[in-house]
């Protein structure tokens, strides 16, 4: 009570002023015209501000500043008091608390009569009850809200299949217990609603659940999944808070997530399958690309080598024709003429080989297929059909131990072609070529052995160069540019295979080629 600006009539001054200024209540008197006569400090502080006056004595309580609703209300209170002829209590709710009026107050108006029994004053006390009113109102609202939401939960719980909701209070009393999924946590509406956990549950149940309920009532959120009756459930135990953030209830939500989980699983599986497919497809494309590049490179190398192989005999042919024009000696002329067929044969062989190679490349090239060694080898032999060397050679093959392989056709064809060509080139001039080709299984791998009785290779000297392009390892009477072995090596190594060689000069050469099958 800061500004003491109270004024009392003599009566009050004499009897009550000291007491009245000590109270928080508004105390004042009105005359019959509703003018303020006496007032205590509390009333003055509030009212003088409200109406903007320093001196409020004889100011009408029905003041236009207060607005119609307030003045009308006061006229009504006074009329009711006069009619009753006794003290009346009014609960006043202000819809305009910004003006400084208490939001909620309780006002008692007592009529005062003089000795002649005439009404002369009204004695008024008001108590500001806003604080307690607000609390009550919030509580009520929270309750209404809760009831509404409980209705909502009830509706949800009964509408959603395999859903459950439980609400309990601080005494572990079940206020709501609804939904078909409750059975999975051992709860039922009939058995639990209205009772407390302590009454309705077994000791074991209490032991298990009480810490969880307590946790929720302490403001913690619990979430877990469990299985029941072959279905997957998700349970949450959560606190419910009032408008002040205080936990006053707990709620259990049970949700059947079996279908969601299943859908997630299916989705994950689908995703994985898709990913795998994309990976496989990418790998396939990559390897197809790689094959294409290899075959292109192979063709490039081949054309280069073949061109060289053609050019050499053609140059010689031209030279001989030129010499035949100038040389007069008959014996020399005949010697030169005798060479011509072999040069033409060289050219023919090279062209045949080229044509065959191009045919290799035409068919379903890059696809992996199950290839019979017999077929592929016979095919390769045909390339040499017209060469003299092969007429005299003794070639035998046995593919009974491993008769086929998943491989890329042109690669295998090229391999046979090159090893055959190699054996023919390096046949010993002293004996007819014997070539034995066999297949063997080595686990997943297939080993092809090419054993010939040719001139052999000095491995001490040539091992490092053996598989490099454009190398030949004998000097006499060998044609060809020496591409074959390097191609074979690069082809078989491309997918993990290998090639190795054993040889004794002038006795034999054995190539062991290990092929890794391509995935089907």
């Amino acid at each position: 009570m800061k500004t003491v600006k109270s004024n009392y009539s003599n009566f009050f001054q004499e009897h009550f002023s000291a007491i009245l200024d000590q109270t928080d209540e508004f105390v004042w008197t009105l005359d019959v015209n509703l003018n303020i006569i006496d007032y205590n400090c509390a009333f003055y502080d509030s009212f003088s501000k409200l109406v903007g006056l320093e001196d409020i004595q004889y100011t009408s309580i029905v003041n236009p500043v207060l607005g119609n609703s307030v003045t009308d209300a006061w006229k009504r209170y006074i009329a009711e008091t006069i009619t009753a002829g006794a003290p009346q209590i009014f609960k006043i709710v202000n819809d305009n608390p910004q003006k400084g009026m208490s939001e909620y107050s309780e006002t008692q108006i007592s009529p005062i009569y003089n000795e002649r029994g005439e009404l002369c004053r009204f004695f008024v006390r008001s108590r500001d009850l806003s604080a307690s009113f607000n609390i009550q109102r919030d509580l009520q609202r929270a309750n209404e809200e809760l009831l509404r939401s409980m209705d909502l939960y009830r509706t949800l719980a009964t509408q959603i299949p395999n859903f459950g909701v439980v609400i309990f209070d601080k005494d572990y009393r079940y206020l709501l217990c609804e939904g078909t999924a409750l059975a999975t946590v051992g709860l039922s509406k009939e058995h639990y609603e209205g009772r407390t956990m302590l009454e309705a549950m077994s000791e074991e149940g209490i032991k298990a659940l009480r810490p969880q309920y307590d946790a929720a009532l302490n403001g913690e959120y619990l979430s877990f999944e469990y299985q029941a009756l072959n279905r997957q459930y998700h349970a949450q135990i959560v606190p419910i808070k009032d408008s002040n953030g205080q936990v006053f209830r707990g709620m259990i939500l049970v949700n059947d997530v079996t279908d969601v989980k299943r859908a997630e699983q299916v989705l994950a599986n689908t995703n994985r399958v898709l990913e795998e497919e994309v990976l496989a497809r990418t790998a396939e494309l990559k390897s197809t690309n790689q094959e294409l590049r290899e075959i292109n490179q192979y063709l490039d190398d081949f054309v280069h080598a073949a061109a060289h192989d053609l050019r050499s005999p053609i140059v010689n042919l031209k030279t001989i024709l030129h010499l035949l024009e100038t040389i007069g000696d008959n014996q020399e002329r005949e010697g030169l003429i005798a060479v011509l067929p072999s040069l033409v044969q060289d050219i023919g062989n090279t062209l045949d080989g080229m044509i065959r190679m191009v045919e290799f490349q035409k068919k379903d090239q890059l696809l992996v297929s199950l290839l019979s060694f017999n077929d592929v080898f016979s095919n390769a032999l045909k390339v040499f059909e017209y060469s003299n060397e092969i007429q005299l050679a003794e070639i035998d093959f046995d593919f009974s131990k491993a008769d086929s392989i998943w491989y890329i056709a042109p690669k295998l064809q090229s391999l046979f072609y090159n090893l055959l060509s190699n054996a023919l080139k390096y046949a010993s001039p002293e004996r007819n070529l014997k070539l034995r080709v066999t297949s063997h299984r080595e686990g997943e791998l297939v080993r092809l052995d090419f054993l010939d009785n040719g001139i052999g290779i000095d491995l001490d000297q040539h091992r490092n160069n053996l598989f490099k392009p454009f190398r030949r390892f004998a000097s006499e009477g060998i044609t060809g540019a020496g591409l074959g072995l390097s191609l074979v090596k690069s082809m078989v190594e491309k997918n993990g295979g290998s090639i190795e060689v054993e040889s004794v000069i002038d006795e034999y050469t054995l190539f062991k080629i290990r092929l890794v099958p391509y995935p089907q």
Partner: protein
Amino acid sequence: MKNYKVLFIDDREMDNLLNRLMVREEQLPFDATYINSGEEALEFLNDQTEEDFPQIIFIDINMPVMNGFDFVDEYNAQLANQPKAINTVLCFLTSSSSDSEKERALGMQNISAFYNKPITMAIFVDLQSRLNNK
């Protein structure tokens, strides 16, 4: 006029025969030696005195074991800096027509020229200017 001392290195019998006949028929002023491989040629050259060392060496490219390029590398390492080799001209004589081989050949140290077979008077005329420049 004295004949040039010339070495032909070519692995094929037929090519050596044709070189020999061409030298004769074109009446090239060569005292020629024909050798079948790079290794033998190196051995031969190492054995030559300054007097006998060839003034012109024709090298085939496509040869087994030691091809023409390998030979030139070896020659450069073993012989090129010896006084007896100072007036010698090296050139390729090959049936190869590949640009990449020609480019590689001409890029090698001490290689004066790249000729296509067969050996002719025209080649010798072209070579003579290079010999005079040496």
